[in-house]
C-alpha cells in the first residue's frame, strides 16, 4: 500500500517527482563533481560547495518538519529550532567523545571545556555517547520525548493558536539560556567545535564530506516520502481537517489531541535528525542555534516556499538560504534590505509562496479569508 500511495502521489503531482528527481541528481552529481572532476576544472565542486549544499539539505529537512506540523496540521511551532539543536547536540556529544585524547588538554575522556572548567569526571548525561548507536538513538529520543512531554501537556489542555506558538517559543528560549550556561556541561557559548572524525573517518576529508552529504540527501528523500505517505493517508486527511475545523472533527469521534501529538513528535524527530546531519558538516553547534529567531526564520522559509506542499517548504529553505549566502558576500552592507524585501514581497504578492507561482494544484489553499474581527471572539454557543 505505501509504495502504491507514493506511486500514485508521484504520478499525481509533478512536485514530488521533481523533488525526488532533484535529490537523486544531487546524490549522483555531487560525488562526481567533487571526486572525479579535477579541481582545475570549472565544474569541480569545492569542499566549500559541499558544505553549502549539505547545509541547504539539512535546512530543507528542517523546513519539511515545520511544513508537516504547520502547513498540514495548522500548529505553528516556533520551537522547532529546539529539536533541531537537541539533535545537533546529541551528535555533537558523540563527535566530542570521538576526539578522545587529541584534544587541547589531551584528556582521554573529558572534552576540553570540561578540563578547562576543572571537571573531574564525565557527568552522567555524557555517558554512552562514545557509542555511535547510542548517539543515533538519542538523536531521535531526546527531541522526540521532549516533544512528547511538551505536546502532551499543551494539546491535552487545548492550547492553540498564538498561545501554543508563544509557549513553544518560550521552550526554545529557555533551552537557549540553559545551554549558554557553562555549568550545564554543554560547552556554554562556544558549544562544540573542532571535531576530528566520525566513526574513525576524518571529517576534514572531502570523501567523508561527500558521503555525509549523500546520506543527508537520502535522509531528506526518505523523510519526504514518509511525510508524503502520512499526508496522503486517511490520518493525513484527519490532520488537514484538524487544521481547518478542529472543533468539528471532534464530533466525528477523532481524538484531536493524539493526532496532534503524533505529528508533533514525528516532526520533532525529523528536526532532530536534520540537526544531527547538520553538525558534522558545518563543524560547530552552539546555543545560538536555539535562538527563537531561528525558529521564526524556518517558518519563513516554509512560507516563502509555499506551505502545505512539503516540496515547497524544502524549496523555500534552499532559496532563502542560498539568497542569504549570496547576498552576505555580494552586498554585505545591505543584504538585510534584500532579504527583508523578499519576505515582504512574497507575503504581499505570493500568498501561496513561490510554489504557488508554478503550481496549479494548490489552488484555493493557504487563503482562508477570515475576518480579523470576530464577533464575540471564541465561538460562543448561544442561539
Amino acid at each position, binding site marked *: 500500500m505505501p509504495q502504491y500511495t507514493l506511486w500514485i502521489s508521484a504520478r499525481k503531482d509533478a512536485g514530488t517527482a521533481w523533488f525526488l528527481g532533484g535529490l537523486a541528481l544531487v546524490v549522483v552529481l555531487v560525488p562526481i563533481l567533487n571526486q572525479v572532476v579535477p579541481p582545475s576544472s570549472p565544474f569541480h565542486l569545492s569542499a566549500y560547495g559541499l558544505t553549502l549544499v549539505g547545509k541547504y539539505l539539512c535546512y530543507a529537512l528542517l523546513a519539511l518538519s515545520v511544513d508537516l506540523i504547520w502547513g498540514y496540521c495548522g500548529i505553528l511551532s516556533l520551537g522547532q529550532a529546539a529539536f533541531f539543536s537537541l539533535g545537533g547536540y546529541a551528535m555533537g556529544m558523540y563527535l566530542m567523545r570521538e576526539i578522545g585524547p587529541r584534544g587541547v588538554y589531551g584528556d582521554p575522556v573529558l572534552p576540553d571545556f570540561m578540563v578547562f572548567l576543572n571537571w573531574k569526571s564525565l557527568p552522567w548525561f555524557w555517558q554512552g555517547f562514545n557509542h555511535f548507536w547510542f548517539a543515533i538513538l538519542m538523536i531521535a529520543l531526546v527531541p522526540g520525548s521532549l516533544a512528547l512531554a511538551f505536546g502532551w501537556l499543551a494539546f491535552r489542555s487545548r492550547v492553540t493558536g498564538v498561545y501554543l506558538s508563544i509557549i513553544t517559543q518560550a521552550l526554545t528560549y529557555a533551552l537557549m539560556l540553559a545551554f549558554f550556561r557553562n555549568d550545564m556541561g554543554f560547552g556554554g557559548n562556544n558549544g562544540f567545535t573542532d571535531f576530528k572524525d566520525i566513526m574513525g573517518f576524518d571529517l576534514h576529508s572531502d570523501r567523508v564530506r561527500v558521503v555525509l552529504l549523500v546520506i543527508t540527501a537520502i535522509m531528506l528523500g526518505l523523510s519526504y516520502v514518509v511525510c508524503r505517505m502520512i499526508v496522503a*493517508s486517511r490520518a493525513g*486527511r484527519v490532520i488537514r481537517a484538524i487544521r481547518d475545523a478542529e*472543533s468539528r472533527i471532534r*464530533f466525528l469521534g477523532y481524538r484531536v489531541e493524539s493526532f496532534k501529538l503524533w505529528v508533533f513528535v514525528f516532526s520533532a524527530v525529523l528536526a532532530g535528525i536534520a540537526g544531527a546531519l547538520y553538525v558534522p558538516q558545518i563543524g560547530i553547534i552552539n546555543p545560538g542555534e536555539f535562538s527563537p529567531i531561528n525558529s521564526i526564520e524556518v517558518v519563513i522559509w516554509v512560507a516563502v516556499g509555499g506551505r502545505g506542499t512539503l516540496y515547497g517548504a524544502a524549496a523555500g529553505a534552499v532559496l532563502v538560504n542560498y539568497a542569504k549566502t549570496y547576498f552576505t558576500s555580494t552586498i554585505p552592507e545591505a543584504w538585510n534590505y534584500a532579504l527583508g524585501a523578499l519576505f515582504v514581497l512574497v507575503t504581499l504578492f505570493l500568498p501561496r509562496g513561490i510554489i504557488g507561482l508554478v503550481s496549479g494544484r494548490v489552488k484555493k489553499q493557504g487563503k*482562508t479569508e477570515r475576518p480579523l474581527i470576530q464577533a464575540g471572539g471564541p465561538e*460562543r454557543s*448561544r*442561539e
Partner: protein
Amino acid sequence: MSVHDKTLYVEQLTVSFDGFKALNDLTLKIQPGELRCIIGPNGAGKTTMMDVITGKTRPDSGTVRFGPKLNLLALSEPEIAQAGIGRKFQKPTVFERLTVFENLELALAGDKSFLNTLFARRTVAQETRIFEVLEIIGLAQQHQALGGTLAHGQKQWLEIGMLLMQEPELLLVDEPVAGMTLQEIERTAALLQSLAGEHSVVVVEHDMEFVRSIAKRVTVLHEGRVLAEGDMDQVQSDPRVIEVYLGA
C-alpha cells in the same frame, strides 16, 4: 450496560453564561427510535442543550445519560461521538479544503485512532457505502469538489451525509432545512423519518411547516426549561406556547 436500551436521559440540566441561564433545570427523555422535534424562540437553549449532550459545553449542574449507565458528562466530544451520538450543526460546518468524498470518508464509522487511520485502506464496502450516501444526499456528481465550494444547501446535505456515515444511535440535527428549496425540504423530511425507528432523532427547527410534517412528538423550550410537550396540535393549542410565540 444493556446494549439495546439507548434512551437519552437529560435531568435537571443547568447551564449559565456569565449570569445568563441558557438552560435552567431542563429535564428531557428521548426514547430509542423516537423522532423528537424541539422548538422554541431564540435563546430558549436549544443549541446549548445539544452542546451539552455532545460534550462541547459543560453544565453547571444536572446529568446526561445515554442508556441507564453511560454518563455522557464524563466523556470528551470524541468519546461521545464514538458512543454513537452524531450531530449536525446549525451553521453547516464541513471541511472546506477536503473534497466531498473525503469529508464523508472521515465520517466513516470505525476505529479512529491515529495509527489505524494512518495505515487504513479504503475497503470496497466502505467505498460503496460512501457512494450510497453520496446518492442519498445527491452529491454524487460533486464528490471530487472541495467542501468549501458547495452551496449552502449542499453543505447542509453534506453534513447530513457525514452524520449518516457515522451510523449513530442518536442523531442531533440542528436546523437541517435552513436554506433549502421546497423539494429539498421534503427529501430531508423523508430522510429523517426513514432514519427514525432504528435511530433516535432529535431535530431542532424553526420551520413550523417542516416540524409539523415530520413530528410525532414536539417539545417546546423556553428560557432553558421545557414549556410544553406533546404532539403538534396539543402544543400549538397550549396558551403558554402561544403567548411565548406571539408575545402577548
